């Protein structure tokens, strides 16, 4: 009896508590904290009670009733059911729950606890009436606790938690146009449904806020209105979703599914641009991003396409097509004919996949009108490529039922205005490519206006400006020669004509015409130009070929060039280098002059000495400062200076530059010629390497 008294005391205390604190505004935090243990405790009596019920029935059937076990078990349930009630009460003080549901949960919970207590008290009693009453009472308790549990679940998970996936979804109205979306009903509400409703619904409305309907949103929550139409930044709702996630007030709370960037954008847009809460998109200023984002919210009843069978696919592949899935695990197919001869039979196999083919490419094949008869059966076709085939207007009649067609490519076929217009009266593909057909720019413009489709018939006039032909290539690599040289020219452009002059004057179509290689036997200054009708003539190409009097075979040199640009023999090898000083044609001298004496083998008369130099100040290569030439009839003595050339190059060009420096001397007879090419020695003060030794690069010294 002592226990009974205690239980009664607890229950009465409990009811006292309700009357005392139900209106309390400031509940101690400790109480709230303890309240959070409600979900931990409440499942204990439920589980224990069900097990007890099971033992009760089994005991009755097996005629082995475990009376004591049932008594102790009910005692356990009693204890924890009362604790659960107390904690549940504490939890309810937090607020944010719908009063109606809470009330039901509250009273059924208390009733359950009372009934369990009753059962416990009865279980230790003997007597026929009690025995008869015990089982029905037990059943009633189970029902009562189930009801309490169910309403508890509504409080925590929302009212459609149990039925969400059981209910047959309402067949949504098809919305295929962005224009007819209601921004709130069809878009924003969906976002709220996914991310917010769990805590802000009519039963569990944290912060007294419910986002379940138009009205409840306008009503706002504990902190007042949450939406100020036309001004997102002053709207509480937007402010909270914008807060950093670490902020306590950030919504949805940390750990819950977050809004994506796009969803935030849509909500902002909705608040900023709606006059009434549920504007249609059409009433809202459009821009591309919005249109794009909203497409995801369209309700489309896509036609259900079945997966193609492996056999059908194989058959089509064997007919010469490649079959690719546009997206794995989806039935749509992209079918392409591999180049070559296409037959009527092979096109007919496509009807096996008439539902699945979404993109069909029959281009670059021998396709003709007769083969395309079955194409209308491919009813889900979105893209059709028929370019570079034999088809004519007739084929367009064979595709005039393809209502889903978006892109049609008929480039380089025999299509005419008539055929295309006929097609456009029945279907309107968004993009039509009709370059190289009988449809010209004007027709395209006309049809575009009339049927609102894009027809591309090639680049707009005026895009291409008639270009200058590129100058010809000089195939002859040599530029120095001693006897004769054949000059070979080539133009990259087919059927163009090369004209040239031999004196450097600008050629025109009356000048010499190039047909065969030109044989020259003296120093020649070519000027070359290419002409072709319908093109602008090439720029003038100037190319000089030098006839050398004597090839030097014997020489001596004072300073050797640096080893990486070695070989003084290159100075007299009759080969010129390119702008790349590392091309093995150049000799390089660091800080030193070139001082070389050539032996002509016999006394000969000379008048010009040319030194071919490269300058590239960025790589510390300068042009020489001075060239002096001395001659002698005798190897060891009697050198007489016959000419000097002072060179004043500023060397400031960043790019490589090749220059010829020629020392003209009065006609002199000599066997030995000494050429001194003076290195500037140090880099000038403006140079990044000022003060360091400078390079000079020479690839050839020749006499003429």
């Amino acid at each position, binding site marked *: 009896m002592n226990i009974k008294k205690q239980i009664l005391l607890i229950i009465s205390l409990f009811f006292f508590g309700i009357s005392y604190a139900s209106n309390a505004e400031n509940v101690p935090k400790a109480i709230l904290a303890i309240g959070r243990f409600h979900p931990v405790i409440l499942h204990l009596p439920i589980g224990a009670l069900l097990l007890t019920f099971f033992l009760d029935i089994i005991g009755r059937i097996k005629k082995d009733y475990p009376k004591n076990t049932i008594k102790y078990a009910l005692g356990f349930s009693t204890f924890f059911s009362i604790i659960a009630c107390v904690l549940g009460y504490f939890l309810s003080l937090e607020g944010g729950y719908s009063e109606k549901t809470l009330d039901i949960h509250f009273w059924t919970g208390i009733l359950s606890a009372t009934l369990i207590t009753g059962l416990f008290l009865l279980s230790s009693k003997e007597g026929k009436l009690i025995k008869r009453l015990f089982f029905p009472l037990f059943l009633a308790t189970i029902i009562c606790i189930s009801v309490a549990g169910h309403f508890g679940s509504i409080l925590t998970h929302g009212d459609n938690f149990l039925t969400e996936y059981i209910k047959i979804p309402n067949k949504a109205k098809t919305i295929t146009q962005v224009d007819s979306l209601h921004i709130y009903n069809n878009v924003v509400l969906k976002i709220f449904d996914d991310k917010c409703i769990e805590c802000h619904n009519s039963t569990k409305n944290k912060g007294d806020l419910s986002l379940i309907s138009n009205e409840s949103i306008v009503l706002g929550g504990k902190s007042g209105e949450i939406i100020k139409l036309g001004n997102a930044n002053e709207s509480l709702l937007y402010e909270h979703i914008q807060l950093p996630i670490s902020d306590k007030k950030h919504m949805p709370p940390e750990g819950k599914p977050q809004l994506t960037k796009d969803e935030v954008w849509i909500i902002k847009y909705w608040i900023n641009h709606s006059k009434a809460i549920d504007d249609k998109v059409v009433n809202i200023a459009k821009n591309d991003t919005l249109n794009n984002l909203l497409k995801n919210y369209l309700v489309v009843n896509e036609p259900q396409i079945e997966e193609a069978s492996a056999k059908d696919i194989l058959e089509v592949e064997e007919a010469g097509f490649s079959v690719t899935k546009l997206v794995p695990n989806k039935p749509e197919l992209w079918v392409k004919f591999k180049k070559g001869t296409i037959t009527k039979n092979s096109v007919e196999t496509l009807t096996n996949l008439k539902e699945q083919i979404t993109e069909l490419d029959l281009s670059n094949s021998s396709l003709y009108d007769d083969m395309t008869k079955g194409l209308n059966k491919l009813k889900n076709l979105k893209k059709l490529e028929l370019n570079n085939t034999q088809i004519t207007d007739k084929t367009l009649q064979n595709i005039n039922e393809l209502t889903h067609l978006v892109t049609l490519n008929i480039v380089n076929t025999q299509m005419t205005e008539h055929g295309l217009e006929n097609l456009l009266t029945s279907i309107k593909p968004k993009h039509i490519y009709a370059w190289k057909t009988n449809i010209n720019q004007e027709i395209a413009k006309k049809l575009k206006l009339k049927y609102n489709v894009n027809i*591309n018939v090639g680049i707009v006039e005026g895009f291409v400006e008639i270009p200058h032909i590129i100058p010809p290539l000089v195939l002859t690599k040599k530029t120095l020669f001693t006897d004769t040289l054949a000059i070979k020219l080539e133009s990259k452009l087919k059927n163009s004509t090369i004209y040239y002059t031999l004196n450097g004057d600008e050629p025109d179509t009356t000048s010499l015409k190039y047909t065969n290689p030109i044989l020259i036997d003296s120093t020649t200054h070519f000027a070359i130009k290419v002409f072709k009708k319908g093109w602008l003539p090439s720029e003038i190409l100037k190319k000089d070929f030098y006839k050398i009097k004597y090839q030097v075979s014997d020489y001596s040199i004072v300073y050797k060039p640096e080893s990486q640009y070695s070989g003084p023999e290159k100075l007299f090898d009759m080969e010129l280098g390119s702008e790349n000083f590392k091309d093995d044609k150049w000799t390089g001298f660091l800080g030193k002059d070139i001082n070389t004496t050539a032996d002509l083998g016999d006394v000969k008369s000379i008048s010009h000495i040319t030194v071919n130099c490269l300058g590239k100040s960025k790589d510390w290569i300068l042009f020489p400062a001075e060239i002096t030439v001395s001659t002698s009839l005798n190897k060891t003595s009697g050198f007489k200076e016959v000419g000097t050339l002072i060179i004043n190059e500023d060397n400031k060009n960043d790019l490589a530059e090749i220059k010829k420096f020629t020392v003209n001397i009065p006609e002199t007879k000599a066997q030995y010629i000494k050429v001194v090419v003076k290195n500037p020695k140090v880099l000038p003060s403006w140079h990044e390497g000022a003060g360091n030794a400078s390079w000079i690069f020479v690839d050839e010294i020749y006499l003429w």
Partner: protein
Amino acid sequence: MEEISKHFLNNNRRHFLKKMGLGIGGLAAASLLDPFSSLATENTAINPSALNLPHFAPKAKRVIYLFQSGGPSQLELFDYKPLLNKMRGQDLPESVRNGQRLTGMTSGQDKFPLVGSNFKFDQYGESRAWVSNLMPYTAKVVDELCFIKSMNTEAINHDPAITFFQTGSQQAGRPSMGSWMSYGLGSLNENLPTFTVLLSRGTGRPFSQPLYSRLWGNGFLSSLHQGVQFRSGKDPVLYLKDPDGMSRNDRRQMLDYINKLNEKQEAEFGDPEINSRIAQYEMAYRMQTSVPDTMNIEDEPEHIIQMYGMDSLVPGTYAANCLLARRMVERDVRFVQLYHMGWDQHFNLPSQIEKQAKDIDQATAALIMDLKQRGLLEDTLVVWGGEFGRTNYSQGVLTDTDYGRDHHPKCFTMFMAGGGVKPGFTYGETDDFGYNIVKDPVHVHDLQATIMHLMGIDHTKFTYKHQGRRFRLTDVSGHVVNDLIT
């Protein structure tokens, strides 16, 4: 017995453990449901459908990436900043630079004189996009282009910056974007590689930095996915030609015999790498005819040559490469990567960029219009851009006619066309100094994520496990820029 040993050889310990639970049952179910992904396509390296890509319907099936190597100056081409002309010669305010890291080339400069463009800007097309007079042909096609003025990167030097754009990481070693696409989406063409590369040198700065073939390397992916460089000379693809005196028939017989040997080896050891070896031999054999066919521009009519410009007749130029790129996408090459070198104009910028822009202007515009008139632009994405931009201040001495610009990572301009991006659209904004981004920044990873999205790939889900970690092109970041997509 043989089947069993083969099965175990093809399935190493990890595969086996992984498949224990779901594998066998799942495989059987899958083969019933979906004829594409089942036993028929075991090898994920060769057939990507086992990767279940694309994740969603792609807007672009092919990509032509026109990489402008060296860092084109956005201030001379697209990003019009009249304030810089007004303030020419004045020092860059520290409040604008804000401690930004500089390269060693200008960090020693004691003054940063602002310099505006020497070239005139104007607005073109219905979209009223700003383009300078260096790009007259591009100006004619602005209504096809989607400009991003707010590109930004973290790298300040060429190699890390290019590597970043291509592989998503500044350090070398990861697969190039084209390799990822090849691995994920597979080939559309049996006769040509999935990922091809074309190089050209600009005339603006002809001896500029070279490029490294690892930029189009496959990283840790199978070597099947590396970019194949097509050269301009006699041998477009190295080691492809039969030696003199060897007939195609001899080659066929040789391959048949090697294949027999390989098949025997495969039957014994069951190593799937042997199968990919056989596949590569066969591909090379087919390429012996398909490559010359692709590279032969003899059949291009004159009006197409006029459209791309005369340079398109000179092999190895950017224009010729643009024309080849079109021929390649026509033949369904998935990813064509062009590189045009020479945009690194530290000094003498006005004279260099004039030549450099002339190299690319007409051919780029022509490529886009040519793709369009053939109906290819719809599902081919064209991307144009360099690895970073150039500074708003002059590197070296600023004179009345001459200046230079150093590398600038904080803002630069790129453009895309076709393949599901908005035509005639400009995204992002820089400040009046052309130094910082003030609106809608697009990071390198964002661009990569967007390109992948257009190809039907969710960049966060497309990974490859290597050295115990899952790698992706966008590393751990990147957001799809939805505003760019139609």
